[in-house]
Every structure is written in C-alpha cells, then in structure tokens.
C-alpha cells in the first residue's frame, strides 16, 4: 500500500515537472513570436498604411500594380493607430467588413498567391449547390468572394452547410462574411472575406 502511494505521488510529481518544462518552452516560444511581431510591425510601418479614421466604407485608389511574389507574411499586418479605449464598444460586423474591404483595395497583388487562392476558393465555394459564384478576388493577403443564391431559402441552406464545416475547412485561414441581404428578383447575395493562411485580418482598433 505504502509503495503504491509513493509510486503514485512520484508519478504526479513527475507529471508536474514535465508540464512545467513544457510551459517554460511555450513561454520562450511566445517571447520569440512577440519579437518577430515587433519586427514585422517595424517593417510594415514603412509601407503605405490604410486610413482608419473612416467609420464606413470608403473608396481608396486601387493599386493595380503587379508586383513580384513575396513570401507569405508570418504575422498579421499591424498598424500604428492607438488602441481602442477600454470600455468602448467593439466594432460592428459592418465596421469590420468595411475595413477589410478597404484593406483589400489598398493591397497590391501577389500574382502567384492570388492566382492559386482564387482557384482554390472557386473549388471551395463550387461545392455548395445552393450558391453560385459571382466573383472571387485575391490580392496580397485578403480575398473577397461574392455569391448569389436563387432565393432566401437557398441562402439559408448554403449558410447552414457552410457553418457546419465541410468544404469550408479546406480554407485554413480566417473567414468573415455571410448573407448580406436580398438581391433583385427575389434572389439573395453573400459576401465573404478570407485571410491568407498563416495571417490574420488587419486589426480594427
């Protein structure tokens, strides 16, 4: 009995030590990630920044210049705006989608990634019979896809399947969007923004 108690105690102690070692390793990794993010912030600050003091959708000069492919960014684009004051309301769905649209329009085009992402997204959305692809546009780190549905019922059917997973999971990056309302002739429309795998959408503070 005593032996068992000792063995059990030692086992628990060993597990705690192993866990602590793993936690320390994770903390070191987080510190390295924070340093990398800081480096990215400094690099990105030298590029053109997106105006952010506009609450609603705005039109920016669209940069159509084709640039040489760049390696996938390892962190989300950061900006230098002051953080949102504590207690202030979070951005609305409309605020966020307007900001992502503005950010997309401000991006140059990574030709290789844009072509590949567009092809893959057409493959993803093409698997949903209740949706028809109207357009897919990808630039540097953000894509926008617009779909049409024959009816509100089709739009609901599509969203139920979309939420469950399935083909959506083929896209590993963040996604925001959904049904944006009725369209002409009793049809419906959906718009999605999709961030490149390994990146996040730019933060709207």
């Amino acid at each position, binding site marked *: 009995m005593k032996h*068992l108690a000792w063995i059990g105690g030692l086992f628990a102690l060993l*597990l705690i030590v192993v866990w602590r070692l793993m936690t320390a390793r994770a903390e070191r990794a987080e510190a390295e990630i924070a340093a990398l993010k800081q480096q990215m912030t400094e690099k990105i600050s030298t590029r053109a920044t997106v105006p952010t003091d506009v609450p609603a959708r705005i039109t920016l000069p669209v940069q159509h210049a084709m640039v040489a492919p760049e390696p996938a960014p390892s962190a989300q684009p950061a900006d230098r705006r002051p953080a949102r004051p504590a207690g202030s309301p979070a951005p609305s769905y409309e605020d966020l989608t307007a900001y992502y649209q503005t950010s997309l329009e401000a991006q140059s085009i990574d030709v290789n990634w844009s072509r590949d992402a567009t092809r893959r997204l057409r493959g993803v959305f093409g698997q949903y019979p209740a949706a028809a692809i109207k357009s897919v546009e990808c630039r540097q780190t953000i894509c926008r896809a617009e779909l049409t549905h024959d009816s509100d019922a089709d739009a609901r059917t599509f*969203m139920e399947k979309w939420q469950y997973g399935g083909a959506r999971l083929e896209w590993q990056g*963040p996604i925001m969007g959904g049904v944006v309302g009725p369209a002409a002739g009793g049809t419906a429309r959906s718009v999605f923004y999709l961030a490149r795998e390994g990146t996040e959408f730019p933060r709207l503070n």
Partner: protein
Amino acid sequence: MEESMSINRASLLASGIGLIVSTVASSSSALSQVIGGNDAFRPYPTHGVQQCFYELYGGAWNSCTQQPTVIFELPLDESGASGGPYDVYTYGLNNGGSGSFTCQAVAVSNNSFTGYWGNNATITGNVGQSGWSFVEVPAGYNLRLQCNYVPLGRGVQAIHYGKS
C-alpha cells in the same frame, strides 16, 4: 484489499491529473476564462451523437467510430453588445485514440446568417499540447469553439480564452 488498492490507484491518478489541470489554469493567467471540455458542449448540427461523448476528468471525449463535430459555447465577459478580439486555446484529450482534429473559434450572430470563423488549430491530444485560434467578435455576436470531426478516443480537456 484488491479493491482498496485499485481505489487508491484511481484516486492518486485523479489527484495527479487534477494537479496538472490546475497548473494549466494557473499558467495561463492572461486568459480570463477557463471552461472544462465537458461543460457546455453539444454535437453539431444535431444532438444525434450525444451518446458518443463521455466525461473524463472534466473533459469530453468521443467514444464512437464516427467523427462528430462538437460546439462549445463560450460566454463572453460582458453581456449585451460586447465583443472584440479573442484568443482561444484548446487543450486536447486522449483516451486511447489516435489522429488529430481541428478546432476554430467562431463568432456567430443569432439574428443574421453571418459570422467570423477563426484560423483552424490542430489538436493532437498530447499532454500539454494546445491549439490557438483567434477570432474577432463583432458587437452583439456570440463566441463559440467548433471542433471538427473528432476521432474516436480524442476530445477536449479544457478551453482557455480571453480578450486578445
């Protein structure tokens, strides 16, 4: 005697795991909220595979050969029109299973067919391994964790989340 020994073994194992879980919780102080895997989960989209999930030291694991998707409702700090950026860490559970699965933080609306689906985090179920998913919760939206196609013997031990 045999029975008493087996009870002691089980209680020692339970205390060991309890210590681990408490250590996990204390080491993630930046995340304001913790929820056990067996709390507030539901199979998605139906409850048809409810019987597949069993509790194990606060976690929930799948006992069926089919691979169901489960959703965990994650209450937000504030009520009403809250939201903002959230980090969600998922700690996997392994009860003799194999293979990995993905979980993602999701912000959904009760009033519209719109949402935000965070990056997919891979969950292996190895002790101490966690997967991170980030989500921007629009004002008035709810926060969830969706774990997709959980294999037999795998599950979720705990979820840590908080404002980013």
